[in-house]
């Protein structure tokens, strides 16, 4: 079947199987920043934004995304750059496998609640697991990013 998606502002049409998940369709079509971690809705690594809300793309059928706006990190590069600088400054990046999904979730949080407290940041991001960093430096970097008005 065919579906129409708007990915990072661009209208795209894909031929898909009815049982294909969004993650697979995106990776097949070279949106390689979206990655698979657990494949069962438990890790957050496959996060993309649908209509600016973070969702686990491994568990959303592509067929249900007809005419939806999908955002990957490539679609919000300016914001990601800003966040990445704070990650660098605070030593919050390690393997980075979790980072694009983290950046998207942080961006969505910023849209929803720019003045989030550190506790709200942790709650909002609890579905984004990271096995490398121990999280603390990430939180410091995210707070700096949220406070950056530039």
């Amino acid at each position, binding site marked *: 079947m065919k579906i129409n998606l708007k990915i990072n502002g661009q209208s795209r049409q894909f031929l898909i199987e009815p049982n294909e998940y969004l993650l697979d369709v995106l990776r097949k079509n070279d949106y390689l920043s979206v*990655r698979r971690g657990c494949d069962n809705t438990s890790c957050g690594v496959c996060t993309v934004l649908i209509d600016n809300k973070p969702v686990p793309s491994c568990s959303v059928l592509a067929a249900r995304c007809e005419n939806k706006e999908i955002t990957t990190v490539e679609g919000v590069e300016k914001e990601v750059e800003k966040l990445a600088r704070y990650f660098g400054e605070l030593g919050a990046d390690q393997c980075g496998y979790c980072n694009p999904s983290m950046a998207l979730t942080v961006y969505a949080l910023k849209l929803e609640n720019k003045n989030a407290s550190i506790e709200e940041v942790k709650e909002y991001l609890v579905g984004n697991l990271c*096995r490398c960093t121990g999280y603390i430096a990430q939180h410091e970097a995210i707070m700096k990013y949220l406070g950056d008005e530039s």
Partner: protein
Amino acid sequence: MKVVNNLTHSIDGMGIMKGRKAFTDDFAEKDTLIVKVMRSPYAYAKILEINDSEARKLEGIEMVLTHKDFKRIPFTRAGQGYPEPSPHDKFVLDEYVRYIGDEVLAVVGRSDEICDKALSLIKVEYEVLEPVLDFETAKDNPIVIHPENEIHEMFDIGFQPKRNIAASYAMEIGDVKKSLSECEYVIKETFYTQAQAHVMLEPHTVNARMDYQNRLCIYSATQTPFHVRRIISQGLEIPLSKIRVIKPRVGGGFGGKQAIHGEMLVAYVTYKTNKPTKMIYSRKEVFESSYSRHPMRIEMTLGADKDGRLKAINCEGLSDTGAYGEHALTVFMVTGSKVLPLYNKVDSVRFAGDIVYTNHTPAGAFRGYGAIQGNFALESAVDILCKKMKMDPILFRQINMMKEKETSPIFAIMGEGTAGTAMIMETCKLEECIEKGMALIGWKDKYPRIESKDKIRSVGMAIAMQGSGIPYIDMGSATIKLNDDGFYNLMVGATEIGQGSDTVLTQIAAEELMTTVDKVVIYSSDTDLTPFDVGAYASSTTYISGNAVWKAAKELKEKMIVEAARILKTKVENIDFDGKTFMNRASNEKITLVDLSNQITYSHEQKQLQVTSSYVGHKSPPPFMAGFVEIEIDKATYEIDILHYVSVVDCGTTINPMLAKGQVDGAIVQGLGMAHFEEVIYGANGKLISSDMLNYKIPTRLDIKKLTTVFVDSYEETGPFGAKSVGEIGIDTPPAALANAVANALDVRITTLPVTSEKIFKEIRRINDEK
């Protein structure tokens, strides 16, 4: 120092967060064959017959591979120095399956769906055998897990497959029995540790293609690209010269990628068919069919005199390597060699035990291997002994632990798989680590506990040591070349797996060449293009590979100065170099690096300046640390809230303080996972039940309230710019520190990991029932 020990952003974080192509699967070919493996439903069985005729007929199925397709060449998947101290007990595919999840056969097809379909059409007939699931009954069990004849050890590691022993080890210094008999206080306790899973977020991934020179080119998410190349060459009899292994960005390893996983099958298929092939482990396969940490039983006996001086340690271990013996011996030896020297003033010390086969998921390398198990036992036992002696556990440690300029006879006796190397602790700041840690956690006010209505707050601590590479075995090397326009390429075999080694090695080169990190372009881990390195393990990269880089940078600098002297027509001794300009001190004549590099590239006496250097460690200077935890326990339910973890670390110079802190923070949380959260559950038939992330719970960002990680000043003369290692040390202390904090709160001692609320509840109930 300008670059080293200063704030430097990781050199790759920006591109990675932007989602640039980086990880192994990002480089898979578009039209690629897929390999999928049928996994054994039985813990132990012999394959009698495989009916795959229906599957082979499927459109899109390229091949079905069974044990009959492979020559019987036993190998070990462990990525270690050669000859490996692990038994060669594995075949690509075998007629026996030895755990639930073991490889039965593989299908190769054009899509995931076709492969799944093919798997569903294949019928396998098994002779189901009775498994050995309890590692405490494995030794000399009538059921033999490896009956085959071809398997062997590479040198004496105590391999006795007919007794289900993968390896064994024993050593004794002094006479432990005698020392113990003279002690005023003796305690003996048995500890158990679980098969922790790595849960790196990128699953095992590999892909291959034949390149235009008709060579096999493999991209693999591995920690040991050079070992992968060797193992594939030996296991499949493909000439080493025909294989190229490239390691792209790796999404976390923690030791889990220190052995080969899908590489053998993917290499075989591509080499045979000339077609690109890939394999990605499902999360279930990562849990069930790769490997975990070695579960162990450790019996610890400690004896002290009436003044609280530790006199004797007897440590007897039993380690469960599961179905295959990857890293069986080396992990076990570390349980002694990187733990027991902490208390170096004993009269006698004994360490011995077997590493046995069972029909469980294999065990293998995992950050802090052996050390975390041993540390849990030893540092718990120390607190138990202190309780018996009514002695302050901090004071006990201060009296008995290793100090600077001291040594332990264990270093000379025990290495990893071989004899060790004697060494003096030129740097050991444990005393300072303890003092600082006590202040940061507020020990004096909080020890042992503070009670309120529903809760108890308490603190606990442990000390630890690790190593920095394996002396006389681990080798790292680096090539540096000067380019026109005065920038450098740095080529290293060292393996960046997220720990930041590309950044750290770049910093070392930049510091020595007196330039900035942007002028040093690193390329790592490509067996065709970078010089040899053993890979990312044994906390070796900063110390071993870092030394190689440092050496190469120094040598290149000398060569550049020779060229400058020639151009400025003076003697080498007269040249000053500040990173940008060479000056003849005698005449004040100058030439810039840019001009020099352009000249030797394009105009006069052209040549390429390039240096390759290698480094082999002659010792393995241990980093040390003290870990302190503060917890709050619910008095009714014994739920534990981890409020604060303080780590004070002596790792020599921190080349990159932020990345070093990140290594410790991450390791602490992983260690707390092992200490409290990560339960491994097996079914009665030997099936791993905690085999997905719904049932195997790693700590989330809400589960640990606060971490404080600080470094003490320390300079290791033999390390690059004074550095020791920092990758593993952080994981060692949390289990014992947590168990000690629980004991300080409730007077109960939990001796099996993880320390869960339910275990505390049961132990308290047992004690009350006895009363």
